[in-house]
């Protein structure tokens, strides 16, 4: 009766909550989505053949729960932050914060040395999560789906209801913000936090 994978599934909960939170930006909704996804997963565990990793399989179940909740909260689209909205409209004026009128970096990106050494440090991952949390709503959703969950851009754009080029702008903006945040909070150099 007790499949040993039950405990293993539970071990993925924190990651799944992260995923849901990045998409829904609402702790209660995120919990709800994960709860529903885990229940579905337990019910269909016998159909999991292990062709993908357990985490990938669980995430794919969660994805659809999240999309479903997003659809129910359709007014969510009204909550776009202004900067994201500008990015979607093709106005790249937001880049003026990072680049001067001659097109050069206002704050030069520093060399980070051997950044992958940070992987071994638990506190680095806390800093990374904090920086993820600081991304604007759309940027956070799109970045998580694209870079962390590894979904393809085309699918993401469709789900977000935006064009590919706007999707790219949003990703670029998120990457710029993340690198500035990590440079400030982890790599220890003075940088613009945004």
């Amino acid at each position: 009766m007790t499949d040993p994978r039950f405990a293993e599934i539970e071990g993925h909960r924190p990651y799944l909550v992260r995923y849901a939170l990045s998409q829904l930006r609402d702790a209660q909704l995120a919990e709800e989505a994960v709860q529903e996804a885990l229940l579905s997963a337990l019910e269909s565990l016998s159909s999991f053949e292990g062709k993908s990793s357990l985490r990938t399989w669980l995430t794919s179940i969660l994805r659809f729960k999240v999309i479903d909740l997003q659809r129910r909260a359709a007014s969510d689209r009204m909550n776009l932050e202004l900067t994201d909205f500008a990015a979607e409209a093709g106005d790249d004026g937001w880049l003026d914060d990072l680049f001067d009128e001659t097109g050069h970096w206002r704050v030069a990106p520093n060399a980070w040395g051997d950044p992958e050494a940070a992987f071994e440090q638990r506190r680095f991952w806390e800093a990374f999560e904090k920086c993820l949390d600081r991304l604007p709503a759309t940027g956070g959703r799109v970045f998580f789906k694209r870079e962390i969950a590894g979904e393809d851009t085309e699918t993401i754009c469709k789900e977000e209801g935006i064009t590919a080029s706007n999707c790219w702008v949003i990703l670029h903006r998120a990457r710029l913000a993340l690198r500035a945040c990590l440079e400030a909070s982890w790599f220890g150099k003075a940088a613009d936090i945004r």
Partner: protein
Amino acid sequence: MEKRPIYDEDGDLYCREASRLLSLAYERKLDAQESQDLVRHLDMCFMCRNFDSQLKFLHAVSQRYRSGGS
């Protein structure tokens, strides 16, 4: 709608555009002109080289995070 020039008076990319292309390279294949401009710019600009390494790092961090590195 506000668009800034992409090239300076010497025909070199501005950092603003170079960084955009570096990020874009993760989403689609750059065309010949874009790659050529970028290679030339990176050769001259340590700031964009740093940014380039940081994008690679962000990509690696994200993948590590997905596979439970945290």
